């Protein structure tokens, strides 16, 4: 650690007996299931969200397999509807929304701001239970008949006609939604009131700013979708007519309310990834982030604008043309803060001391993929092109570029970056780098052909395309890519788990990174810091001169050793 300011407190925050940390302090099952420790709750979320991700991926695999032939392969239309609905519902409500906030955010937020825990530890635990109960109901619904409405539950199909387990699944999503609201409340209270002395708002790591913006969206958006879905449940169970067109109700009103949440929900999924990428880019370029304030406020701007663009999902509904024009204009505005981020990250890398370790490779992959995902969003935000592209594979490709290429890559990058902190173990960075490349290739092979398919007219949610057999080449390309991507997603499960068994012990700061979370032991003790840290230096305060000297030393060491796969900065201390 070269910067003198950040080393303050480092020694006193390393426990005398390194063996006692949040993982080994207690071993009973009840010590996990009844814990109030944000780090343990993050681990519970990690295991359970990975499980849901696995289920969602199986559904995705079935979809891709079905589409390898123009006539479909194994699934009936009805089954196919249930499979893609299951894929969407599980991935969005049980993985993408909670993944980064509830796993990495939960773990890191108190560490990054120098707090002992989140503001409301029991509420935090309750949120995990709500997540699990919601998830269980969703799964029971899926197993006991499935849902065929798609993840969007458009009325009146969902409220009046669908004979599937819509009620059960909606109740599950409702409960799971409250887990998201309580997480948001916890984060907002924590960020406002639990910062360590000296941790001013503009010394907060950008990940914390991203978490703050995400929490605002969770608090303001989720209740709206919760009540909307509840009204559909009421309509199914108690015959309360709210969206029934035959009584004068307005089914399109459901779409308005649904997208009022579900567009911001897209930012709930991507903003945390932005936060991770800011951390990765700054720390692996070994430079202070370019335009800190702009990156921080662009997250808030995205959160704010996110509430004003829902109508761009409804250009082909009965929405008025003038409404569409306004929604379209505001949607284009979202490109501004997003571009600010991309440009600032790129500028941060410019003349930085870039270290291509596995988290950084994910981050660089993210930059490219998110740019494609963002720019194709402009096609869909324009009223003219959208009418041509609505409900085609172009839309599917676009949001997978943002959700998978953005959120999932950000999550994987963050998981690799903070894994040594979370577990105290180093994984094999060589395999991890190769894996990052596999994921990047697999991802693009899966979803880029879908842009072309969509442009040519392949509709989404169809399980056959015998009307256009020429699409098959692209579909097979996409399915091949999904196998590569699937391999790249399974591999980390193995080498990360292996690191727990035979990984080298990680020091407090294996990457030589900046941030309070790197000043305490890995894994951190239960109270995070043995003494409350006092923050005196700015965020990402890399000193250019010592960075250069350190880099020269690392280069010498790297050249003199045969083990190129170890972490070059490991021996800084």
């Amino acid at each position, binding site marked *: 650690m070269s910067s003198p300011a950040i080393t303050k407190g480092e020694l006193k925050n390393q426990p005398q007996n390194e063996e006692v940390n949040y993982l080994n302090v207690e071993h009973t099952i009840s010590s996990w299931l009844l814990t109030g420790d944000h780090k343990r709750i993050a681990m519970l979320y990690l295991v359970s969200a990975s499980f849901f991700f696995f289920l969602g991926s199986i559904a995705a695999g079935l979809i891709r397999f079905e589409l390898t032939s123009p006539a479909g392969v194994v699934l009936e239309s009805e089954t196919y509807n249930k499979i893609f609905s299951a894929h969407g519902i599980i991935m969005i409500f049980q993985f993408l929304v909670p993944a980064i906030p509830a796993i990495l955010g939960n773990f890191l937020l108190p560490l990054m701001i120098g707090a002992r825990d989140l503001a409301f530890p029991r509420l935090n635990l309750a949120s995990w239970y709500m997540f699990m109960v919601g998830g269980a109901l969703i799964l029971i619904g899926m197993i006991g008949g499935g849902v065929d409405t798609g993840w969007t539950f458009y009325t009146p199909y969902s409220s009046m006609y669908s004979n599937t387990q819509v009620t059960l699944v909606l109740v599950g999503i409702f409960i799971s939604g409250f887990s998201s609201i309580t997480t948001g409340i916890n984060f907002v*209270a924590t960020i406002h009131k639990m910062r360590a002395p000296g941790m001013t708002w503009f010394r907060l790591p950008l990940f914390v700013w991203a978490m703050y913006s995400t929490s605002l969206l969770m608090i303001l958006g989720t209740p709206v979708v919760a009540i909307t879905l509840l009204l559909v449940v009421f309509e199914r169970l108690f015959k309360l007519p709210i969206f029934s067109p035959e*009584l*004068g109700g307005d089914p399109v009103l459901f779409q308005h309310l649904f997208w009022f949440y579900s567009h911001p929900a897209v930012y709930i999924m991507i903003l945390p990834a932005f936060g991770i990428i800011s951390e990765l880019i700054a720390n692996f370029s070994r430079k202070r982030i370019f335009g800190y304030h702009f990156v921080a406020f662009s997250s808030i701007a995205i959160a704010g604008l996110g509430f004003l663009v829902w109508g761009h999902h409804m250009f082909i509904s009965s929405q008025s043309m003038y409404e569409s024009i306004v929604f379209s204009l505001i949607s284009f505005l979202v490109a501004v803060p997003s571009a600010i981020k991309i440009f600032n990250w790129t500028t941060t890398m410019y003349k930085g001391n870039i270290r291509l370790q596995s988290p950084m490779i994910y981050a660089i992959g993210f930059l490219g993929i998110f740019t494609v995902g963002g720019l194709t969003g402009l096609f869909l935000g324009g009223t003219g092109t959208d009418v041509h592209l609505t409900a085609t594979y172009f839309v599917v490709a676009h949001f997978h570029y943002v959700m998978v290429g953005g959120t999932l890559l950000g999550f994987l990058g963050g998981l690799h970056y903070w894994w040594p902190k979370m577990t105290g173990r180093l994984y094999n960075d060589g395999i991890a780098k190769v894996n990052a490349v596999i994921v990047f290739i697999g991802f693009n092979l899966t979803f880029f052909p879908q842009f072309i398919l969509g442009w040519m007219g392949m509709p989404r949610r169809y399980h056959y395309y015998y009307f256009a057999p020429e699409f098959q080449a692209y579909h097979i390309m996409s399915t091949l890519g999904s196998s590569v991507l699937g391999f790249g997603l399974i591999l980390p499960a193995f080498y990360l788990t292996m690191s727990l068994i035979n990984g080298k012990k990680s020091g407090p700061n294996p990457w030589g990174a900046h941030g309070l979370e790197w000043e305490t032991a890995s894994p951190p003790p239960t109270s995070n810091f043995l003494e409350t840290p006092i923050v005196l230096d700015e965020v990402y305060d890399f000193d250019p001169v010592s960075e250069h000297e350190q880099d020269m030393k690392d280069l010498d060491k790297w050249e003199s050793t045969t083990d190129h796969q170890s972490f070059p900065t490991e021996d800084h201390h």
Partner: protein
Amino acid sequence: MSAISNPMDHGHDHGHEPGLHHQYEDMAQQSETYIVGMWTFLVSEVMFFGALFLIYTLYRWNYQLDFYIAHEHLDVKLGAINTTVLLFSSFTMVMAVQSAQLKNRLKVMGYLAVTVLCACTFLVIKYFEYKSKFADHLYPGAGFADDAVKAFGNHALENGHVAVNMNHAQLFYGLYFGMTGLHALHIIVGIGVIISLIRLWFNRANTVIHDYVPTEMVGLYWHFVDLVWIFLFPLFYLMPLPR
């Protein structure tokens, strides 16, 4: 609410004041954080009911006369009594919070008990209101308001024919049962929360006797529930004849 549910969560290594949880530095930080958390929760509640009010506004705007005729069946007197009961319960809640600030344990418990009593009164009156709606088949579904005159009075008739659009009247009652039902659910939750607060005060739990803020948080929730009714009452019961 988490702070209230388990007052016995102690046993942390560093010494601190009774009633202070381990994640906080001092009582001031704890109280401020509680308040921020509670207000943030209430913001999400506003959004929750906000969507309902939006739906109500839209449909009432579209079907003004039908909503007016449908609302004729609601009993303004009972609604007004319920409004008074809730307003009074908010007053006793304020007194309970003030007594908590003054650390007057018996008064806190007394005022909270009166608040619970008011809440139960509200629910009983609500029960009789619902009952009369069911009696006249005003619950949405098949056979809705089969006797329109009995249900809505003579306003429903025009030249001897039923003038009210029964479909729109069903929408009105769908919203009525949905919105007042969810509000009643909040009242029931509130009763549970207040009773557990009384229990904490009764047991002299550290969580509440050293710091009035947990009591204030319950108070904030209760005022919110009250406030929702303050909007529901005029929207459903006090409708002017549309021009």
